[in-house]
């Protein structure tokens, strides 16, 4: 009753989507023998990893009631920065990694700072930094792809450990860390509180501004991880990379049950959301659906999955 009045974008539940995802997988397994093979599943995992990292980051942000549209630009900036330091025989691997992550951290912290200090809505701030970031990536790289990267660096995107692609390993580690932060730490608790009812959080003595700073910074770090992964995967720092990634990441989070009005969401849901998107786009290619129709089918399945999700619950 109380206090639900302004929950605009109604929450999408957390269980139905698992079912929707399962159904989709079963249907696919029957429609093409190529879907349910180890190699294809590993490919899907690898393909999903970047979007999932961004989606984890934006899940934190959305849980506090914010939004981050600058994800894609952060991917470009951090990728270009990392690539700049990743030429063979220049610096040890740690340098490009730290430079990339560091630039993402700064970018995210800047988002957080502007959002908490000014009263500008996150939508506008991050729309602004999305444009700024795109410009920065082009300025840093002088508009040209930064190529000729070291093999050790490229390993991050293309290597295997015991047959498991490295991006999948990063994905799993990030998932565990994010889940712990969200569910097991005070910071995670405060994220839910700030997003669930900012006044109540403030009245409980929570420093709302600090929580927001953290959240956007973490989102920046995760975007940087995505940027590094992308750069290593295509072995180039691409200043125009990541365009539109923000929408996919936000979609994954919302499909997974995070409500844009804040206060709810889980990392598992987001992971499923990202997998759902990844599986659809993989299987549309496998089924050789013509590209124009792919887009139509993609849209229909995403809406359909979330509708199905809604049926699973009562409320």
């Amino acid at each position, binding site marked *: *009753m109380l206090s639900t009045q302004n929950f605009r974008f109604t929450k999408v539940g957390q269980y139905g989507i698992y079912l929707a995802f399962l159904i989709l997988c079963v249907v696919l397994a029957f429609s093409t023998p190529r879907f349910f093979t180890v190699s294809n599943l590993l490919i899907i995992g690898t393909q999903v990893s970047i979007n999932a990292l961004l989606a984890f980051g934006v899940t934190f942000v959305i849980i506090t009631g914010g939004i981050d549209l600058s994800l894609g630009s952060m991917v470009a900036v951090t990728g270009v920065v990392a690539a700049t330091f990743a030429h063979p025989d220049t610096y040890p691997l740690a340098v490009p990694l730290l430079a990339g992550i560091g630039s993402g951290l700064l970018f995210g912290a800047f988002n957080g700072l502007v959002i908490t200090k000014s009263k500008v809505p996150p939508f506008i701030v991050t729309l602004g930094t999305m444009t700024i970031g795109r410009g920065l990536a082009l300025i840093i790289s002088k508009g040209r792809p930064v190529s000729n990267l070291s093999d050790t660096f490229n390993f991050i995107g293309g290597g295997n450990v015991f047959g498991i692609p490295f991006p999948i390993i990063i994905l799993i580690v990030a998932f565990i860390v994010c889940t712990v932060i969200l569910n097991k730490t*005070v910071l995670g*608790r405060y994220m839910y509180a700030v997003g669930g009812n900012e006044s109540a959080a403030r009245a409980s*003595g929570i420093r709302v501004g600090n929580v927001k700073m953290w959240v956007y910074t973490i989102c920046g770090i995760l975007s940087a991880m995505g940027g590094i992964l992308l750069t290593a995967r295509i072995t180039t720092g691409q200043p125009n990379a990541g365009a539109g990634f923000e929408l996919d990441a936000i979609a994954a989070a919302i499909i997974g049950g995070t409500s844009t009005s804040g206060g709810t969401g889980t990392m598992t849901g987001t992971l499923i959301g990202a997998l759902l998107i990844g599986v659809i786009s993989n299987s549309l290619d496998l089924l050789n659906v013509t590209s124009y129709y792919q887009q139509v089918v993609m849209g229909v399945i995403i809406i359909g999955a979330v509708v199905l999700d809604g049926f699973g619950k009562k409320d």
Partner: protein
Amino acid sequence: MPDFILTVNQLSKSFSGIKALDNISFNLRRGEVHALMGENGAGKSTFMKILIGLLTPDSGEIVFEGKNLHDSNVGDTLKKGISMIHQEILIVPELTVAQNIFLGREKAFGVKRGWIPGLLDDSAINEKSAQILQQLGVDISPDIKMKHLSVAQMQMVEIAKAISNEAKVIIMDEPTSAISDKEVEMLFKMIRDLKSKGVSIIYISHKMDEIFRISDTITVLRDGKYIGTKSAEELDHNSLIAMMVGREIGQMFPEGNASIGEEVLSVENLGKKGKFANISFKVHAGEIVGLAGLMGAGRTEIARAIFGLDKMDEGMIRISGETVQIDSPLKALKNGIGYVSEDRKGLGFIPRMSVKNNVTLSSMKRHQKGIFINTKSEEADTAQMIADLRIKTSGMDQKVSTLSGGNQQKVVIGKVLLAAPQLIILDEPTRGVDVGAKFEIYKLIRNLAENGMAIIMISSELPEILGMSDRIVVLSKGRQTATLSRQEATQELIMRNAVV
């Protein structure tokens, strides 16, 4: 010189030019219960929000235990030992009861030591919360999500939260507005306990009897100004009201002399699984039917079902003898049923819209020419309502979110009245409303009845039920346990039927 734990000097605060507090001075003794009284909009909550650090004053100083409380934020004040039960229930719906109780204090109570910084220990919090809730005598599981609780239960959790802070000063801003007598007794027991331990309480309420039962000292504010501080013994009911309102109010419940007319509403065997069953009663034109019961008895659920907000599982509703199917509020309004919800924030008004736009929202049919709004008729009706209900506002374009609670309530009543219903359901119509306004609302209800309106009044305040109703339906755990006439009803009889 008495031992003041808190001293406030010449505090002022205005909102966009309007003075909400004007040079307030205030002293709080150690171990006293100090009531803060005043009409709706007098500035009580604003004052308290400044004390706790949620609002910053324009001028003035606050001294707590000899130290200036200047520039503190809420976190600091809470740590220094001031806690507050807020008037508007401030909870995080998606978190559990225990998580809400310890929100902001996890570091002290529920953090495991380990190599991950800030790792939570929810089982410790749950255990501790269970203890506190038990002390308060409330039966709520600490690990259920807050959003599943009723408003009353939420208020109990807020009380638990404030009390468990081990504060030296506890501010209680209308802590009993949503709870019933049983819980109030538990709260008072706690307050006495705390007092004996030297804790000071600032207590705000519009329920006069509570004030005289619990408080040692009473300070009165009026229109943001300090009127005076007296010890509770020096005052009686009437002199306190006079201080607050600036005039005497005679008899609280105006005499009714409405003639009971035709049957307007008849419900038969209403039932909704797990909420209520076998509810049957009739309401006639000019009649006031009271629905009495304890918290959670199902009164609101019945009202919601009749108004079409919830589906019911069985039963029949007749309006003026004709069976109607009501599946939406729109249908209810079309059938002449109006509803003033107990949840005025959730279901009552649109906070960002003006008084005028709120008041006319349910009656736009009468205020339109084609698809366009007829501003003239809208303004005329609004002006009429502001005058009739004595809504205290700076103008019909003031946003409802900036009105005081009582005036928000009047806006909602005004909206329902303009929809010109035959039957109006008033759910806790005087919740959080000051004495003066209460009296006006009672007069208004009487007036409506005299003009032939059928009225269902739900209230947790027995005197109100007894003073206003022509007939009283008593509910207990979703069942109808008695239907009493005005003559036979007594406080004891109602209570006896409410607990069976």
